[in-house]
């Protein structure tokens, strides 16, 4: 670990904190339907979209209607991706002549993109046409991100409203988020990325003759426009197979730094939106502090582990950290920081191969996802995920003093706690359940690239990433098989929607409750005690659930590595 390394980490955290308030202010205005500086341009387009699609923007929806609208929207999104993938051979924008994508891979990818997972069983440059990249993937990158933010807004409204039966209008939330938040940032961001060296072209792959006279086919494409939303919307599905490690998908140290910032920007800002909507920004800062504590701890461990290197490198006298699977322009610190950022948020883009990380360095990304991706988290998904844990923490605090717990003026009762538990139980069910199948079913075992405990970790990581809708991988695992295409798609689907439905039920039930003013017996939720309590509940829940699995994977591998064992 170096001083310059730590300075990069501190600068990153400082900029995120600085962006939280202005972005939160802007997003609050957007979702309250107030005027913004972009309204003169965008308002006519917005009104036109409502008119043509028959949306009455004044009519709000009950939480059930809101949820059904969201589900219907995703059925359509699924069909578009599946359709263009299956038909890409006969559709335009296919200069590389990619053939139709297989049924199971198309199914997996379609589920992957509507759930904001963006797991890559596809090979990007080797499988997909430009049309699929744009109309299939880029489009759903926008809409799954907008959906996540819309759902978080519905839950936040549940807290901020009193005695109301509605939580907002899904169509309006998605449209506003896309038009006023995501698109304008992406337009500027795309140009920045191209300036840094990212291709943005519809032309064919380049045929080059290298200095030594060999032929090199260089894949290009409309990369920057997709990468902008891939990062901002915490989607993470790469244009190229190597994702953000590919020099075209992440050309410079600056593009890398800005990509990391854009993963966290909207998720962090939503904590401020929450604070503003419930009438006290300090509530938002308290939530962000919980996230910050867990984040910094994770960065420190991964950075330390990667800078330390591995026993096999030490045995050969190689110093300078674990550079296997990392790029020179990022080095140890920017690769470690990126890995923690991308798994804390539910992004899943990678600028280094997590499979080649040290045992402990790779364990932190795994833990980040197993905690439910609530450290900033996916855009929207992180916010509603964190609020579920807050509800549990408040419930525990209430049990200690024997009174009905309250949070930001709402009584937290049996229904909310049951729903929060239901949502959180989805994680172990899918992750541990499918991992158990994956390590005994012969066709699944054959997919492991590494032997010994590392092979187990590959499987555990795959189902953790899919269920958490992250999308990063221990990529040695051959995921493009019938077994993994189907089981991972199931995990992504259940991990996304079976968490959303209970969260929305909470939103509906909270919105109907009366708001009660704080009294002397109210547990203050803006202080250090609250932050500590939530951090504790998150770690205890995650620890109790996943420690045995971690002990079989990264922990035993770390001990084996130090003992000089190879597999």
């Amino acid at each position, binding site marked *: 670990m170096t001083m310059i390394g730590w300075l990069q980490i501190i600068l990153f955290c400082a900029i995120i904190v600085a962006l939280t308030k202005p972005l939160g202010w802007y997003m609050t205005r957007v979702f309250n339907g107030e005027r913004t500086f972009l309204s003169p341009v965008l308002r006519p387009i917005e009104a036109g979209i409502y008119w043509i699609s028959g949306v009455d923007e004044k009519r709000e929806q009950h939480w059930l209607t809101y949820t059904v609208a969201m589900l219907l929207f995703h059925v359509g999104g699924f069909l578009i991706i599946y359709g263009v993938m299956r038909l890409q051979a006969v559709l335009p924008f296919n200069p590389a002549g990619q053939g139709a994508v297989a049924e199971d891979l198309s199914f997996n990818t379609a589920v992957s993109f509507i759930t904001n997972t963006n797991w890559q069983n596809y090979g990007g440059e080797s499988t997909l046409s430009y049309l699929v990249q744009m109309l299939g993937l880029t489009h759903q990158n926008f809409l799954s991100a907008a959906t996540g933010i819309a759902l978080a807004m519905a839950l936040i409204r549940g807290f901020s409203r009193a005695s109301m039966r509605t939580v907002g209008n899904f169509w309006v939330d998605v449209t506003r988020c896309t038009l006023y938040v995501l698109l304008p940032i992406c337009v500027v961001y795309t140009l920045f990325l191209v300036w840094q060296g990212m291709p943005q072209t519809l032309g064919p792959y380049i045929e080059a003759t290298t200095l030594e006279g060999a032929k090199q086919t260089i894949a290009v494409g409309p990369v920057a426009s997709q990468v902008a939303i891939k990062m901002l919307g915490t989607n993470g599905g790469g244009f190229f197979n190597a994702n953000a490690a590919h020099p075209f998908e992440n050309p410079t140290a600056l593009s890398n730094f800005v990509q990391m910032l854009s993963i966290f920007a909207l998720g962090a800002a939503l904590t401020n939106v929450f604070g503003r909507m419930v009438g006290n920004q300090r509530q938002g800062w308290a939530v962000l502090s919980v996230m910050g504590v867990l984040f910094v701890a994770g960065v420190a461990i991964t950075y330390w582990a990667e800078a330390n290197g591995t026993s096999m490198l030490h045995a050969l006298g190689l110093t300078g950290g674990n550079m296997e699977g990392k790029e020179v322009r990022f080095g140890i610190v920017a690769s470690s920081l990126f890995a923690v950022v991308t798994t804390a948020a539910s992004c899943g883009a990678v600028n280094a191969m997590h*499979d080649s990380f040290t045992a402990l360095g790779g364990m932190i990304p795994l833990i980040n996802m197993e905690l439910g991706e609530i450290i900033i988290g996916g855009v929207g998904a992180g916010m509603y995920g964190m609020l579920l844990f807050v509800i549990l923490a408040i419930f525990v605090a209430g049990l200690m003093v024997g009174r009905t717990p309250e949070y930001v003026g709402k009584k937290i009762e049996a229904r909310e706690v049951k729903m929060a538990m239901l949502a959180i139980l989805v994680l172990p069910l899918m992750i541990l359940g499918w991992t158990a199948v994956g390590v005994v079913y012969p066709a699944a075992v054959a997919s492991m690239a590494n032997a010994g405990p590392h092979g187990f970790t590959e499987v555990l990581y795959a189902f953790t990433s899919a269920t958490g809708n992250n999308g990063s991988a221990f990529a040695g695992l051959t995921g493009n098989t019938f077994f993994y295409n189907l089981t991972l798609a199931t995990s992504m689907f259940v991990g996304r929607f079976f968490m959303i439905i209970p969260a929305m039920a909470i939103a509906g039930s909270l919105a109907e409750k009366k708001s009660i003013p704080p009294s002397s017996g109210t547990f203050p939720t803006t202080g250090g005690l609250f932050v500590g309590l939530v951090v504790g509940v998150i770690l205890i829940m995650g620890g109790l659930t996943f420690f045995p699995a971690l002990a079989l994977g990264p922990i035993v591998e770390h001990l084996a590595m130090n003992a000089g064992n190879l597999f």
Partner: protein
Amino acid sequence: MLREIRPAIVLLLVLAAITGLAYPLAMTAIAGALFPAQAQGSLIERDGKVVGSALIGQEFKDDKYFHGRPSATVAPDPNDPTKTVSAPYNAANSGGSNLGPTSKALSDRLKEDVEKLKGENPNAAVPVDLITTSASGLDPDISPEAAQFQIPRVAKARNMPEDAVKQLVASNVQGRLLGLLGEPRVNVLALNLALDRASAK
């Protein structure tokens, strides 16, 4: 609930057209006008022929060139499309080795390559980036140490004084951005092009 069906179809199609077609196509046009070189892939031409991209590494095996990092990229096996064969710096199929910290395969490869490099330059410590594969398999850079390590070999193969090669390396080192972001590095293709130019003089 029935009245949610029309927006589910129409709104989806409108937003798909905006975000999936209008946005990427407009960005292609604007980016192509503002930054034509980058938008096309930062291609480098020599004598009118494309020799590669400034951002994409390529394979160098010849002693007279600086070598990049080992690459783990593969290509479909021409004899059996269900299998793959090693194809270093395959810029149409990026990827890493994905071998973990207790992988015997990785340990064996490292041992073999360290011996080879030590034979080439017994006087310096082997830089870790020169022996490990990159994440993309297309890393265009090596560390300044990895470039310095290769100076004796390149100078000998080209009959150039070591100091001249050393100077070329030094002038091709890119530092951290603002002294803070990223890592110092040397673009291998740029260095080798400069080397060819210097030899031609």
